[in-house]
């Protein structure tokens, strides 16, 4: 039995917005794999909740009129991984969320919850950054869209305006981010399942048509700072470069210019920095190979 003060169940998106406006103190609960755990731990005990879990309209993956991938916020990780659109156009995201916790967690956990809780270790977050995802929020004034980078404000805080009754309704992957793009997410954990990332690294690469050069590269990390982050210094090093080992090494070292991991009991800063470089090297290598490039 959870120590829930009151629970309001939303029956539709407008209903959820109404409930948010009526109960400004209440927390949104989607799949609950974070919220209920924190409630059990006592951190959120005695709080009011608005459950949006039953809103099936917010589930599923589709292509919108501009061929952007639209992922309903309540789509579970396992459904994202299994989705044909994701597998065809953005397999790195499917692979990334396939590394969340355990099979059961991937069945209950939602991409909306994973992003809205604002934690840097979210397995989806670095890939969403490397694919420049767009977050769709719906509130009393309608729909608001913003880049994922702007959605994260600081650790645990995202740009959702409770006072406008907003809830997150979708995440969009722009066509420009996935077309002719290949990528790889690497999760570093202390064990191979039931694990929070010590560091997550996602690379998204587009090669030149002759597959000799990097046309565009994006790299993003989780747990390399208080919020998930892009690493522009490393990206700048390789955009337009030929596919060589030296380029990859230079790219990997350059991540240190931007990342800012901290010392904690989970991992030291020095350890995270070392691993970050190695992960960048491996993620870029794998991405290039997936794109059909040959590294010299």
């Amino acid at each position, binding site marked *: *039995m*959870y*120590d*829930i003060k*009151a*629970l309001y*169940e939303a029956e539709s998106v407008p209903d959820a917005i109404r409930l948010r406006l009526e109960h400004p103190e209440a927390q949104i*609960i989607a799949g*609950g*794999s974070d919220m*209920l*755990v924190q409630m*059990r*731990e006592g951190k959120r005990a005695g709080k009011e909740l608005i*459950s949006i*879990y*039953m809103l099936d309209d917010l589930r599923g993956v589709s292509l919108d009129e501009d061929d952007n991938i639209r992922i309903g916020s309540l789509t579970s990780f*396992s459904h994202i991984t299994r989705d044909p659109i994701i597998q065809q156009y953005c397999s790195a995201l499917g692979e990334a969320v396939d590394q969340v*916790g*355990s*099979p*059961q*967690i991937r*069945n*209950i956990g939602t991409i909306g919850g994973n992003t809205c809780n604002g934690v840097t270790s979210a397995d989806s977050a670095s890939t969403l950054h490397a694919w420049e995802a767009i977050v769709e929020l719906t509130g009393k004034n309608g729909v608001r869209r913003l880049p994922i980078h702007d959605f994260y404000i600081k650790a645990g805080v995202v740009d959702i305006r409770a006072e406008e009754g907003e809830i997150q309704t979708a995440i969009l992957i722009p066509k420009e981010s996935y077309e002719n793009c290949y990528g790889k997410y690497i999760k570093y954990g202390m064990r*191979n*399942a*039931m694990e929070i990332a010590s560091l997550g690294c996602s690379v998204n690469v587009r090669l030149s048509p002759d597959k000799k050069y990097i046309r565009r590269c994006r790299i993003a990390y989780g747990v390399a700072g208080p919020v998930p982050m892009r690493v522009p210094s490393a990206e700048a090093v390789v955009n337009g470069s030929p596919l060589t080992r030296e380029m990859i090494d230079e790219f990997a070292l350059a991540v240190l210019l931007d990342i800012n991991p901290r010392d904690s009991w989970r991992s030291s800063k020095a350890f995270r920095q070392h691993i970050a470089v190695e992960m960048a090297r491996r993620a870029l290598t794998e991405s290039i190979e997936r794109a059909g490039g040959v590294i010299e």
Partner: protein
Amino acid sequence: MSQYKVVHCNINGRDVEKVVDVRASLTDMLRNDFRLTSVKKGCEVGECGACNVLIDGETFNSCIYLAIWAEGKRIRTLESLTGPNGELSDIQQAFLDETAIQCGFCTPGFIMTAVEILEAGKLYTDDELRKLLSGHLCRCTGYENILRAVKKTMYRRLGKEIDF
């Protein structure tokens, strides 16, 4: 100031209706209201897998699933596998035959995940099976015989020879 809600769902093939406390987890509902005590509590925060049940064919840790979310769902627990005359299903028998059971506390959760795996009708590799079963912790078996039990049953259902 308790808050209650009527939940309609299908549990182990039977349509049921129950008034539940909105604060209840699905574990609470299954254990306390339906006495389905195969649903075990090992952590109550979704880390051990002992409370795992199938909801609409997918595995869920019922400890972090609100009872009210069961509305309209089809829920299966280990109790559903045993036949009317106490017959064991193939996967239960395999757990017995392969010595995949020790203290028995993780067993119900594991078997329900195995059911989902087997119902997929696919031939998985060992690595795939390990990943599919990785939502359950066990301290007794080292997982070794559990892997054997699931793998052998998977091969048998697919009518294939097992290669060990």
